[in-house]
């Protein structure tokens, strides 16, 4: 575990150093090229602003109104049938929509049930194995200027759903339901 942590904290400086050293070795004017290329970053960020505003407002309204809670309640029969623990359902719904709210949720769940309980392990696994799908989609497609996303959201939701199921399954298998 220690070695993995070390690799993790040295990865970023290592990547930057490798890029710079190879650049200099190949006689690239590193600073000039850096400044020239960095301009591209500004236009990209400006392009994503409108889609991000649109998305975050929709998510904000959906959450603050209680519509999300309603959706979770309505889906209870389905989630019960699949075997997702009741306490983890709000996280499963929140995770693709909001990263910060999901973090708050898992801290709350683990405060109540304990991080080493079955629920605590399941929500930890869910949190670590999924991404803020809606945010990523809006950000990436916004930057490219894509309006018709075709089947991307469907495929991403299928992947998210499978990671929720896999989290429950692998935690049951490894830690047991206790």
């Amino acid at each position, binding site marked *: 575990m220690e070695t993995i942590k070390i690799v993790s904290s040295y990865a970023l400086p290592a990547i930057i150093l490798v890029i710079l050293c190879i650049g200099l070795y190949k006689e690239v004017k590193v600073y000039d090229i850096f400044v020239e290329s960095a301009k591209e970053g500004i236009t990209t960020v400006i392009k994503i602003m409108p889609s991000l505003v649109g998305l975050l407002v929709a998510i904000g309204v959906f959450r603050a109104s209680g519509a999300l809670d309603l959706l979770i309640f309505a889906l209870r029969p389905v989630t019960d049938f699949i075997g997702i623990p009741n306490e983890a359902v709000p996280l499963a719904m929140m995770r693709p929509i909001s990263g910060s709210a999901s973090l708050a949720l898992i801290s709350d769940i683990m405060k109540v049930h304990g991080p080493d309980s079955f629920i605590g392990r399941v929500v930890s696994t869910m949190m670590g*194995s999924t991404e803020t799908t809606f945010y990523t989609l809006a950000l990436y497609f916004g930057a490219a200027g894509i309006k018709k996303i075709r089947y991307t959201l469907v495929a991403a939701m299928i992947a998210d759903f499978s990671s929720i199921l896999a989290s429950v399954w692998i935690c049951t298998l490894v830690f047991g339901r206790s």
Partner: protein
Amino acid sequence: MLNYIWFGMIVVGFVVGIMNGRIDEVTKAVIESSGKAIEISIGLLGVMCLWTGLMGIAEKSGLVELITKLARPILRFLFPQIPAKHPAIGAIVMNLVANFFGLGNAATPLGLKAMNELQKLNPRKDTATDAMSTFLVMNTSAIQLIPATVISIRAALGSANPTEIVGTVWVATVCSAVVGIIAVKLLGAIFKRGKPWKL
């Protein structure tokens, strides 16, 4: 499709908010969320410039070409539509590496760069390509070495073994990545044959 989802979330939100008597909270959320969106964008500006700048150097020095060559066998399967020496491949690989090491600050700018490169290959500029969908799904399945945030929360809440979930996270992530890629390939094939439903 995004049009309907967006419309639906806002309208359902307002209706439910009125029924719940939470219209003041909803109004507040509208204002706060729009501010937050710009905050996030501004926060991205710095790292975005840093990484597009560094990627510029990596491209000029031939490093990107080297990475592309090494990753070609896997990428040929995942992204058959991208020409062998296209810069999109370099950005995609760098993004996946950054994600793997949990370097969110580097992963997002590199991902956006990859999307820009993929857009250059796109014949219909307003429509997502198969390569874009594959890349997005790989990104949202969050393949990473160490789920650092979750571990630190577990440690803060007094877990006896905060890192015990690393193994289960790996299994769950790999499951979702595999299922996601299969889904993308299948849906891509279905869509190629025509429009099964209008999106």
